[in-house]
C-alpha cells in the first residue's frame, strides 16, 4: 500500500530532516509512529499525505510513484486516505455536520444522500447533539472527534492521525484508540503518530520510531 525507499527530505538548502527512510505499510495493518518532538514525525506524515515531495528516494502510494502524479491524480489518491490533523483543521464557518460531510460534498453528492451516514458517524463519535454548532463553540476533544469523523466519512483505505489524542483526557484517548482499532479491524490501515507511551502500551502494534531524521521499525 505504501512504500518508502531511501527517502530523504530537506527544506530549501537546510540539512536533511529525513535521511534514508525505508519502510512499508501493508493493507489492514496498524502502526504507531513515535519519536521526540521535532524528530520529523509531522514531516513524514506530510510526505505520506502528498503535501510534500521527497528531495530524494522513491515513494509509492497504492502502487503509484508519487513523483509522477499530476494534481488531479493527487486528489484521487487523497480520497483513499483519511487524515486527522493535530490542529484539527476544521472550517470555522461550517457546522460540525458540514465539516464532517465535506469529503462527500466535494464528490458532488447531494446532501440528502449522505445525511443519514453523516448523522450516524457523528453519533458514533459522541457528537450527535453537537451537529449544528460551529467549531469555535466545540471543546478541544469535540473538535478532535469531529476531525476524526471527517477523516472516516469517506471510508478511507489508509488513515493517518497526527497526535489524535493530544487534546483529550486519558479516558477519551482510550476511547479514540478503540475507535482506531475497530476501524483497523474493518480493513483500514492505520498510522497513528503519538508520543504518548501509555497510549501505545494499550495496544500491541508495530512501532515506527523516528529519531534524528532516521526511522527505526519495531515489528
Amino acid at each position: 500500500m505504501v512504500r518508502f525507499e531511501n527517502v530523504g527530505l530537506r527544506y530549501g538548502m537546510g540539512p536533511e530532516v529525513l535521511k534514508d527512510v525505508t519502510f512499508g505499510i501493508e493493507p489492514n495493518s496498524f502502526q504507531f509512529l513515535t519519536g521526540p518532538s521535532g524528530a520529523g514525525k509531522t514531516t513524514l506524515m506530510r510526505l505520506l499525505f502528498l503535501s510534500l515531495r521527497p528531495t530524494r528516494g522513491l515513494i509509492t502510494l497504492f502502487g503509484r510513484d508519487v513523483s509522477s502524479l499530476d494534481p488531479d491524480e493527487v486528489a484521487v489518491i487523497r480520497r483513499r486516505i483519511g487524515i486527522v490533523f493535530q490542529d484539527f483543521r476544521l472550517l470555522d464557518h461550517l457546522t460540525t455536520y458540514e465539516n464532517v460531510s465535506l469529503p462527500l460534498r466535494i464528490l458532488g453528492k447531494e446532501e440528502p444522500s449522505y445525511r443519514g451516514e453523516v448523522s450516524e458517524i457523528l453519533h458514533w463519535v459522541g457528537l450527535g447533539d453537537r451537529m449544528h454548532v460551529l467549531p469555535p463553540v466545540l471543546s478541544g476533544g469535540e473538535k478532535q472527534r469531529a476531525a476524526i469523523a471527517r477523516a472516516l466519512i469517506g471510508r478511507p483505505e489508509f488513515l493517518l492521525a497526527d497526535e489524535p489524542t493530544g487534546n483529550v483526557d486519558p479516558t477519551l484517548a482510550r476511547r479514540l484508540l478503540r475507535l482506531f482499532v475497530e476501524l483497523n479491524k474493518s480493513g483500514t490501515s492505520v498510522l497513528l503518530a503519538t508520543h504518548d507511551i501509555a497510549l501505545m502500551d494499550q495496544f500491541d502494534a508495530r512501532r515506527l520510531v523516528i529519531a534524528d531524521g532516521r526511522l527505526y521499525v519495531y515489528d
Partner: protein
Amino acid sequence: MSMIDPARLDADPPARPRRAGPRGLTPIVPRATVAGRALVAVVAIMTFLAGLTIGSVMAVRATAQAWRSDVAREVTIQIRAGDPAAVAAQVKLASELAAQTPGISAANVLTEDETARLLEPWLGTGLDLSSLPVPRIIVLRLDPAAAPDLTRLRRTLTDRIPTATLDDHRGWSRRLGAVAEGVVVTGLGLLLLVATATILSVVFATRAAVATNRTVVEVLHFVGARDGFIAAQFQRHFLRVGAEGGAIGGAAAAALFLAVALLPRFGVGGDPEAPSVFTWLHPGPWGFAGIAAAVVLMACVTALTSRLTVYRTLRAIT
C-alpha cells in the same frame, strides 16, 4: 457505514440536520471573505463606462448613417450670379437637363426666400439678396431605385452652362464616414481598456480571496478536492459579484440614455433649430442590446477570470 459497530451507536434515531437540502448548505468559501462591495462597485463603474461607450458609438454610427443617407439622396446644381435674365434662362435650362436625366426624380429650384434662409446662419436675418451676388441653387432628388449618371450630367451642364457646377456632396459624405469610423475605433479602444481594467481588478480580488481563504483551500485539498472543484467555489462567488455589478452599471447607462431620449418631451434640448446632444444621442435597439450584452459579458469575464486566477494560484500553492 459498514465499519461502525451497530452496538456502539446511540439508540436515538439520527437527528435531522438543520438544513434540508444543498441549497441550504453553507457555501464552502465564506461569502464575507470575497471582496464583495468594492468589486461590485468597480464592475458597476466599468460596465457603466462600457455601456456609455457602446451607446454613444451606436448613436454616432446611426446618426452619421442617417445624415449620409440624406445627403446621398440629393445633389445640387449651383449657378453663379450674373445678369438676372441670363441666370433665369440658365436655371430653366439646367432644370430641364436635370429632369431629362434618368434617375433624377425631382428638380427643385430654391426661391430667393429659401436661399436667404440657407444664408441666415452666416449673414443674419432680413437681408436683401438683390444687392448680393448670390448663386441660384437647384436641388435634385435622386431616385434610390436607379442611380443617375452624375458624371454625364456634370459634363453636359459644364458644356451647356459654363457658370453651372454640380455638387454631389461626396467629399463631405466621405469625411463624415471617416469621423464615424474614428468614433467606432476609439470606442473599441475604450472598451478594450475597460475590459483590461476589469480583468486586472478581478485578478487582484481573486488572489486576495484565495489568500484569505488559504485554510479553506488547504482543507479542500486534504479531503481530496480537485482544483476544478475549488475553482468552481470561487467562481460562483465572483459570477454573482460580476452579475450584480454588471446589472447596476448597465442599468445606469441605459437609464442615462433613456433620460436623454425623454428630456426633449419635457422641453429640454428639443429645439430642432438648435441641435444638441439630446437630438441625436439615441443608441437605438441595437445600442441597448449592446449594453445588455456588456452586462452579460462583464459577469462572464469576472467569473472566468476568477476561475483562471484560482487555477494559477492553486498550481503555485501545489
